[in-house]
C-alpha cells in the first residue's frame, strides 16, 4: 500500500517524461487513477494476460481513437454510433496487434473529428492532465483529445489518432506529448471513419519521438484496401529522392547532429493571435536548432492567410459527403420518422437526433458550398488555393515533391530552399474546458491546416510549459520526408527547454 502511494505521488510530481516504458500493469493502474477525471478512454479493453503475441512491439499498450475501427465499439463519439461495433478492424490497428502491441481501449474525441477542444462528445468532454496540481479542468485539445490525454497520463504507451486539420498535433501540444501526422498516404486509411478523405491522416501520439518512430515503422506500409495509400514503388522513389540530398549526412559529429539541415521560419505564421509564450518558444526553438547545426533562415508562404477558410470549405464539403451514409438503416442508431414522409426524408429523424449540433452545422455548411450556386464561388476557389499552397511548399523545399515529378534525384542545393520548417503548433496553451465557443474554436487550427492541405508530414514536439500548461513546436517537411521530420524532432525534444 505504502509503495503504491509513493509511486502515484511520484507520477504526479514528475514533469512529462519521454523515455519511460511502463508495463501493462502500470497502464491499468494509470487508467484507474486518471481516467475518471480525464475521461480519456470511454471503452477499456479488459486486461487479458493470456493473449501474448511476440513482435517488435511486445509489451506495448496502445489506445485507439474512437473513429478508427477496432474490436471495441467505434462510436466516433457520436450518438449515431454509440453502440456500433465494426465488422472489420482498421489496417493500422491490425498491424499493431500483429507486432505484439496490446489495445487497451478506445479514446475520446470530438464527434466525427469535428472540433478542437474534445468538448462535443457523446461520452462527455475529455480533460487535460495539466495543470497537474490545478483544480480547473482544461481542454486536452481536439479532436484526438482522449488519445493525447491518455498518453500524457501514461494510460498507454502510444495512441492512434486522426489528423484532418491538426487533430493530432494540437492536442499533443496542449497535453505536452509528441503528436505526429505522417505524409498523406503513408498510413492506410482503411478503417478510419472518413471526415475529409483528401485531408485525413492516421496519426500517432506518444511521450517520445522514438516511440513515435517505432510505431510509425509498423503502421506505415502499402495497403491495397486504400487506393490513396502510397504504393511500394512510390515509397522507393521517395527514399531515393531523400537519399540523394548530399548535404544531409547521417554521419555527423555529436555536438552538431543536424549539420547541413536548413530550417525555414515561415513569416506568415506570425499571426496576431500568437501569444507571447508561443512566440518565445518559437524563438528558443530556432536558437536550439541552430545550436544543433541547422541553418535557420526566414521563408515566405504567401498564401498562408487564405489557407484556413479554404481548408474549412473543402473539409466541410467532403464531410457532408462522407457523412451522407449515416442513415440508421444498415447500422447505427435508428430513430423512426415522426410522420409518413417521402423515401428520401425517412432518415431525417435519425440524422437530426443522431448528430450533435457541431456536426449538423458542418454538414449544412458543407452541403451549401457543394450546391450548384455556391460551387463556383466557394468550392472551386478553395481548390485553387489548395493547389497554390502545395506549390508554395514545393518552391521552398529543396527536395522535389514525388507526386509532381518523375525525378529520382534531388538537384543540387539552392540557397533559398530549405529542408524543413519550424513554427508553433498552437497560438496559445489549452483553454479551460467549456470556456470556448463560436469562431474562436476554429481559429485554433490556423497553425496546423497547411500541412493537411499540402499532405506534408508534420510533428508537434513538447517545448516547455507556460504557467503549468504545455506548448509545442511544429516541424514540417516536404511530402514523403517523414524520416527527416522525425529526426529533427528527436533532437528538438532531447534537451529540456
Amino acid at each position, binding site marked *: 500500500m505504502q509503495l503504491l502511494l509513493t509511486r502515484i505521488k511520484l507520477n504526479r510530481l514528475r514533469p512529462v517524461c519521454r523515455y519511460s516504458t511502463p508495463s501493462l500493469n502500470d497502464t491499468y493502474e494509470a487508467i484507474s487513477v486518471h481516467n475518471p477525471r480525464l475521461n480519456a478512454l470511454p471503452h477499456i479493453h479488459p486486461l487479458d494476460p493470456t493473449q501474448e503475441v511476440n513482435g517488435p512491439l511486445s509489451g506495448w499498450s496502445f489506445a485507439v481513437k474512437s473513429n478508427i475501427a477496432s474490436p471495441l465499439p467505434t462510436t466516433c463519439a457520436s450518438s449515431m454510433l454509440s453502440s456500433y461495433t465494426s465488422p472489420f478492424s482498421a489496417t493500422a490497428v491490425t498491424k499493431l496487434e500483429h507486432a505484439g502491441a496490446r489495445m487497451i481501449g478506445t479514446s475520446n474525441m470530438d464527434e466525427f473529428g469535428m472540433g478542437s477542444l474534445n468538448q462535443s462528445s457523446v461520452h462527455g468532454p475529455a480533460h487535460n492532465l495539466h495543470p497537474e496540481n490545478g483544480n480547473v479542468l482544461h481542454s486536452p485539445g481536439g479532436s484526438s483529445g482522449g488519445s493525447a490525454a491518455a498518453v500524457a497520463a501514461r494510460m498507454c504507451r502510444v495512441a492512434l489518432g486522426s489528423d484532418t486539420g491538426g487533430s493530432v498535433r494540437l492536442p499533443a501540444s496542449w497535453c505536452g506529448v509528441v503528436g505526429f501526422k505522417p505524409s498523406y498516404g503513408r498510413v492506410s486509411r482503411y478503417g478510419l471513419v472518413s471526415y475529409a478523405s483528401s485531408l485525413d491522416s492516421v496519426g500517432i501520439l506518444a511521450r517520445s519521438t522514438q516511440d513515435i518512430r517505432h510505431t510509425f515503422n509498423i503502421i506505415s506500409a502499402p495497403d491495397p484496401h486504400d487506393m490513396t495509400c502510397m504504393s511500394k514503388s512510390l515509397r522507393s522513389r521517395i527514399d531515393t529522392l531523400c537519399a540523394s540530398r548530399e548535404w544531409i549526412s547521417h554521419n555527423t559529429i555529436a555536438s552538431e547532429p543536424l549539420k547541413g539541415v536548413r530550417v525555414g521560419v515561415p513569416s506568415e505564421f506570425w499571426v496576431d493571435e500568437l501569444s507571447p509564450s508561443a512566440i518565445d518558444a518559437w524563438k528558443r526553438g530556432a536558437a536550439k536548432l541552430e545550436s544543433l547545426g541547422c541553418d535557420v533562415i526566414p521563408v515566405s508562404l504567401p498564401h498562408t492567410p487564405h489557407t484556413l477558410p479554404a481548408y474549412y470549405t473543402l473539409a466541410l464539403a467532403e464531410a457532408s459527403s462522407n457523412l451522407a451514409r449515416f442513415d440508421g*438503416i444498415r447500422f447505427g442508431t435508428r430513430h423512426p420518422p415522426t410522420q409518413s414522409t417521402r423515401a428520401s426524408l425517412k432518415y431525417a429523424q435519425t440524422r437530426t437526433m443522431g448528430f450533435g449540433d457541431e456536426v449538423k452545422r458542418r454538414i449544412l455548411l458543407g452541403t451549401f458550398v457543394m450546391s450548384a450556386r455556391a460551387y463556383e464561388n466557394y468550392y472551386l476557389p478553395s481548390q485553387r488555393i489548395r493547389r497554390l499552397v502545395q506549390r508554395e511548399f514545393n518552391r521552398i523545399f529543396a527536395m522535389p515533391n514525388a507526386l509532381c515529378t518523375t525525378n529520382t534525384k534531388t538537384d543540387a542545393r539552392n540557397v533559398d530552399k530549405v529542408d524543413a520548417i519550424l513554427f508553433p503548433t498552437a497560438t496559445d496553451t489549452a483553454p479551460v474546458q467549456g470556456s470556448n465557443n463560436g469562431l474562436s474554436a476554429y481559429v485554433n487550427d490556423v497553425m496546423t491546416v497547411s500541412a493537411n492541405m499540402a499532405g506534408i508530414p508534420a510533428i508537434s514536439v513538447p517545448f516547455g510549459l507556460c504557467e503549468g500548461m504545455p506548448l509545442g513546436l511544429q516541424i514540417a517537411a516536404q511530402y514523403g520526408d517523414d524520416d527527416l521530420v522525425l529526426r529533427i524532432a528527436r533532437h528538438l525534444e532531447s534537451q529540456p527547454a
Partner: protein
Amino acid sequence: MMIEAHQTTAGFKATIGLELHVQLLAAQKLFSAASAKWNEPPNTNVNVADAGFPGALPQLNPECVQLAARAILALDGQIQQRSAFDRKHYFYADQPLGYQITQQHHPIGRGGYVDLGSLDGLEYVKRIGIHQLQLEQDTAKSIHGVYPGHVLVDLNRAGVALIEIVSKPDVDTADEAVMYVRKMQNLLRHIGVSNCNMEEGSLRCDVNVSVYRDGEDRLSGTRCELKNLNSLKVIRGAVNAEISRQIAVVQRGDNVEQETRGYDAQSDTTFVTRTKEAAPDYRYMPEPDVPEIHINESWITRLRKTLPETPEAVMSRMMPQYGLVQEDVETMLGEPGCTAFFEQAVVGRDPKRVLSWITSEVFGQLAYRSQRLVGSSLTVPQFTQIIDALSSDAITSGQAKQLLIEFMDGEQRTIDELIAAHGWEVISDDGKLRVISKQLLDTHPKEVARYLKGQTRRLNFFVGKLMQATNGQAKPQNASEIMKELLEARR
C-alpha cells in the same frame, strides 16, 4: 407508319438521344470484391464498401476498366488516357453511401459511333454518334409495394459495374432508336462486355426527346427525358407517344416543359414523373478515395488485339462465304462463340446442314439446360463426328440427336464407342440382309403374291419387317433395294 406521316405533314421532326446503362460481365463489383452475380438470394453479395460501413474504402476492379475499354474500342471511340471519378449525391433507399461513384466530368471513353443500315432493317444509312462512355456504380434494388409503408432494399446490386453510354442526339425516329439499342445489344454481347438483357436489367434505357419545326435547328426544342423503358417495344411506343404529345403541345401554342416522364403502355401515353423544379442538385464532387486512371498506348494496343471481328464484319464475310442469309448469321451472332464454332465445324461440310443442326438441335439443347455454348461440354470434334456419321448413314437422325444429348451431358467416350455401346452398328453386310430377307419372303407368301399381282406398295411392308428384324440397324436404302430385288426375282 402513322407517326412518320404525322411528322412530315405537321412539319415537325424529332431529335432523340439515348442513355444506355449497361451492366458489365465482370465477376466482381466495380469498387468491391463482392460477387456481381445476378439473381442471388437478397443481401448475400454485400461487402462493407457496398453497404457504406464507416471506414470502408473503394477498391477499383481492373476487370471493369478492361471491359469498358473493350466497349470503347468496339464503338471506335477514344479511350481517355486519363480519367477520373466523381461523387453524385442524392439520398435514396437504394443509395447506401448517399452518393454514386460515377465519371461525370472525366469519362474513360469519348466519341465513337454506331452505323445503322440495311443489315439492321433501315432503308438508308445512318450514323449515330456517341458522346461519352463512363464507368459508374449500379444502385441497390428497392422494392415498393410488398410491405405497406416499407421499402425493401436488396444490396446485391449496389456497386455492380455499369457503363453508361451517352449517345449524341443524332437519332430522328423511334425506329432508329430501337435499332440503335438492338445494335448495341448485339455488339456488346459479341465482345463479351455485357448480356444486355432488358428483362434481367443488364441493359436499361433512358431516352431524351424533343421536337422542332422542319427547317429550324434540330436542338431548338425543349427536351423531356423518358425513363424506365424496359423493353424494345416500350421504347418504340414511348418515343412515338412523346413525339406526338410534344407536337400537340407546340401546335396549340404552349411550351413543352422540361420534365422526366414515364410511359403507360396501356394508354400509349407518357406521364410526368418529375418536374424540372423537383430535379435534384447532385452536388458533384471529385471522388477523393480513388486516384485517376492512367492508361497507356501499349495497353490499348494489346487490348485491341483481343477484340473479335465486329458483327458487321462477320455478317458481310459469312453470308457470301457460306451462302447464308442475314437471319442465319444474326441467330448465330446472338450466341457468343457460335460463329467461331460454326466456322470450325463447317470445314469440308454442308453449311446448311451444319447451320441447321446448330440452330435447331444444339440451341434447343442449350435452352433446355439454360446453358451458354461457351462453357457447355460440347466440343467441335464431337459435333462434327455426329454430322459426319449422319451424313454417311452410319446413324439415323434420331440416333444423332441422342448422341448430341449424351455429349452435352458430359459424355467423354468417342462416337465409335458410343455407337458400339448402344449396339447401333449398321448392318451393311448385304449377305446377311439377303438371308434375313429371304426368310421374311418365305414366311409371308400371301404378301409376296399380292406384290407380284401389282400391289407394289407391299414392298414397304417387307422393308418394315426387315427393319424390325434388324432392330432398325439396316440401312433403309439398302433394305429397300435388296427386298425389291428379291421380290422381283420371284416373278
